[in-house]
């Protein structure tokens, strides 16, 4: 093993260590904080690239290092690190996207008072996410998983003086915690069944044949429980409600955590424990994978529908993320693991790009986030517009030059060949059209048309912010090179199969399908939203064209299908009621019981007191009185008369004599 692979634990350790150093700096040391964070990220990126290059050497590369954490009795708890193609690719993506976002944050958070704290939290998050990726033990993964959740909480609620941010952070943490409960239960069950939580351990790991053989039918339930964690973290239905609210955090946070990396952790987890999901598959289908598919496709479609009706620039992108994650889950579920992971990597790049572009727009419009108030930024912020357009086309799935197109095609291909049902395929097709539709709507509102209220006094963002945008845009384009089916290098790398360069394979029927869908989506978007933001026939300017056409449907979608309200009436109301009930029980019932016991003790004390005072005291007093009386009586016998005494002596002596005579 080369040095970077042998010391792969440094990759998460360095950013976390640097975050602790930054926390010890004073608030005024902004440049040191940013510098340290970026240095840490660069080192992590360098090590990740070194590990990645190392992993290219051999096909089906896997470097594992396990060690014992602690022993109790005869059992030892072992954890370790693993570096395989999945992990190596994820490491490079996370480190690279993270670096771009760190650089962007220097410009975006330049006016913020808590600049140093921001970089400390960002660095901490980066280290934790890198740790999730290379963990070889489900327990270690869970530890880093929770750290990532903590970092998300700290960063969403970064502006602590805003109550909405605090509420959003709380909501995120609690919602993901619900998923994590399922994750933890699955982990316990797995440990109980297979005796180990290590993934790869020279054949004894829980994902290798020996470990899997011990699971039997419980593998489905374990997989579903672990999937609960993924549902929470990746914002799948029904635990998606925290992701849109998480947009209360600063935009770099949304880019890093809620677009590229943390929400990807759920998809990564499913890919990581895929052998559990696919155990006992018949024709590539198992029950747990079927659940994954249905939840994924529901999420994808639902989120895409809601995104059409949102007016906040970041919320559209948030729902887009939820939808794309659903798409990735579908891909994993139907068996296209490599396709799903490739889409995850590509999505990381172009979603971060889109969010940073949105951040640039928000920064330029002086923190206005409503797209209906923006417009015509195409000429006022050209670099932002161009990079945003690249991201939008990648997301919509325009093939050939944009990475998102190829990966989406792969996913469509995998979904079309699912033996169980064709319904997910059709729903995914609908999702592709909707994606193109809402992105077109957003681009038209923000960049086209004539400038509206917030677009006055807008300048292009400084270079420190536009350079990462350009870098990510280039990544989004050139990444497509390794994704084409003509040279499926990344696919081969992830699955361990050799890749052949065959240009003819680039032209597949699915390519035409996706071309048609994307064109339909963009075309429909242009048609409907061509005059958005401007008055058109009888529609006022501020009313969305879709809203004008279908007000009831629009209202339903705009209010997020009332799911938050539903949860509020049911789950949260139930929690409130149980909390109040518990409080009442504690205050009156248990407290009453405790007080009753106290009262019992008190009664016992009173009883004892009375027994003591009236019984024993009186008894003693009576004895004393009796003794005194007896004494008085006996002393009255002492008459002082000598002759009486003499007489008694005489009688006594007589009695003794008689006794003597009787005995002898």
């Amino acid at each position, binding site marked *: 093993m080369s040095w970077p692979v042998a010391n792969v634990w440094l990759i998460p350790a360095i950013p976390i260590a640097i975050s602790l150093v930054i926390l010890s700096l004073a608030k005024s040391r902004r440049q040191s904080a940013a510098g340290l964070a970026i240095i840490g990220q660069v080192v992590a990126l360098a090590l990740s690239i070194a590990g990645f290059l190392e992993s290219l050497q051999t096909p089906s590369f896997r470097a594992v290092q396990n060690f014992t954490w602690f022993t109790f009795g005869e059992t030892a708890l072992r954890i370790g690190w693993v570096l395989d193609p999945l992990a190596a690719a994820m490491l490079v993506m996370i480190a690279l996207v993270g670096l771009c976002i760190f650089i962007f944050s220097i410009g975006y958070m330049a006016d913020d008072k808590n600049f140093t704290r921001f970089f400390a939290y960002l660095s901490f998050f980066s280290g934790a996410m890198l740790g999730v990726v290379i963990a070889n033990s489900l327990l270690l993964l869970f530890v880093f998983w929770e750290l990532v959740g903590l970092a998300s909480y700290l960063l969403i609620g970064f502006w602590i003086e805003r109550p909405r941010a605090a509420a959003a952070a709380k909501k995120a943490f609690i919602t993901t915690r619900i998923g994590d409960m399922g994750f933890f239960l699955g982990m316990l069950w797995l440990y109980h069944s297979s005796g180990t939580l290590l993934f790869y351990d020279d054949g004894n790991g829980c994902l290798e044949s020996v470990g899997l053989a011990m699971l039997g039918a419980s593998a489905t339930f374990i997989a579903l429980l672990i999937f609960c964690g993924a549902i929470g973290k990746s914002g799948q239905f029904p635990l998606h409600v925290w992701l849109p609210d998480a947009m209360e955090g600063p935009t770099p946070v949304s880019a890093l955590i809620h677009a590229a990396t943390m929400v990807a952790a759920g998809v990564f987890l499913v890919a990581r424990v895929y052998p559990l999901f696919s155990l006992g598959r018949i024709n590539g289908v198992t029950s747990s994978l079927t659940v994954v598919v249905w939840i994924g496709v529901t999420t994808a479609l639902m989120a895409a529908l809601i995104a059409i009706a949102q007016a906040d620039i970041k919320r559209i992108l948030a729902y887009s993320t939820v939808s794309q994650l659903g798409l990735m889950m579908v891909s994993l579920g139907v068996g296209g693991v490599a396709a799903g992971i490739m889409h995850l990597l590509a999505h990381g790049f172009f979603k971060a790009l889109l969010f940073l572009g949105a951040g640039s727009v928000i920064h330029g419009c002086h923190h206005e986030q409503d797209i209906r108030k923006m417009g015509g930024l195409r000429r006022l912020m050209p670099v932002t517009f161009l990079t945003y357009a690249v991201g939008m086309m990648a997301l919509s799935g325009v093939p050939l030059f944009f990475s998102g197109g190829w990966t989406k095609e792969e996913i469509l291909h995998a979904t079309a060949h699912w033996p169980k049902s064709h319904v997910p395929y059709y729903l995914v097709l609908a999702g592709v059209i909707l994606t193109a539709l809402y992105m077109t709507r957003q681009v038209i509102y923000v960049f086209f048309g004539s400038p509206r209220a917030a677009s006055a006094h807008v300048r292009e963002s400084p270079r420190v912010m536009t350079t990462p945008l350009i870098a990510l845009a280039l990544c989004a384009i050139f990444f497509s090179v390794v994704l084409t089916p003509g040279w499926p290098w990344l696919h081969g790398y992830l699955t361990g199969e050799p890749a052949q360069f065959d240009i003819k394979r680039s032209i597949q029927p699915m390519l035409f399908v996706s071309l048609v869908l994307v064109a339909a989506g963009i075309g429909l978007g242009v048609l409907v939203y061509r005059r958005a933001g401007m008055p058109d026939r009888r529609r006022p300017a501020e009313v969305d064209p879709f809203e004008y056409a279908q007000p009831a449907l629009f209202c339903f979608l705009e209010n997020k299908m009332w799911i938050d309200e539903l949860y509020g009436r049911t789950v949260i109301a139930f929690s409130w009621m149980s909390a109040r009930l518990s409080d009442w029980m504690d205050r009156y019932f248990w407290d009453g019981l405790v007080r009753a016991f106290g009262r019992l003790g008190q009664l016992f004390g009173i009883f004892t007191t009375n027994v003591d005072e009236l019984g024993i005291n009186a008894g003693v007093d009576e004895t004393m009185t009796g003794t005194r009386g007896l004494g008085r009586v006996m*002393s*009255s016998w*002492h008459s*002082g*008369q*000598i*002759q009486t005494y003499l007489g008694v002596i*005489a009688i006594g002596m007589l009695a003794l004599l008689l006794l003597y005579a009787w005995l002898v």
Partner: protein
Amino acid sequence: MTLTLQIFLIVSAALFCIGLLAALSRRHAIFILIGIEMMLAAANLNFIAFWRFSPEPHQPTGVMVAIFSIAIAAAEAAVGLALVIAVYRHYRTTNVDQFDQLKG
């Protein structure tokens, strides 16, 4: 009639009882002393009687005891009289009924 031991014992017992009666029922202190002397005399008589009718009357055992007893009686009478005089000096009476300071 022949002098048997029983006659002497009866006399001695009678004398003892009379002495006891005297000690218990006379009010004058001197009379109590007289009664005590009579009891002592009765005891002496008892000793002599048993000595006289013993198998070896030539040994002077009984007489010795009687002589000691009389000497002690005399000493004791002296002491008793001294006591009576001391008490008389305090109480100015010899009526034993009035010596009741130990009354409780």
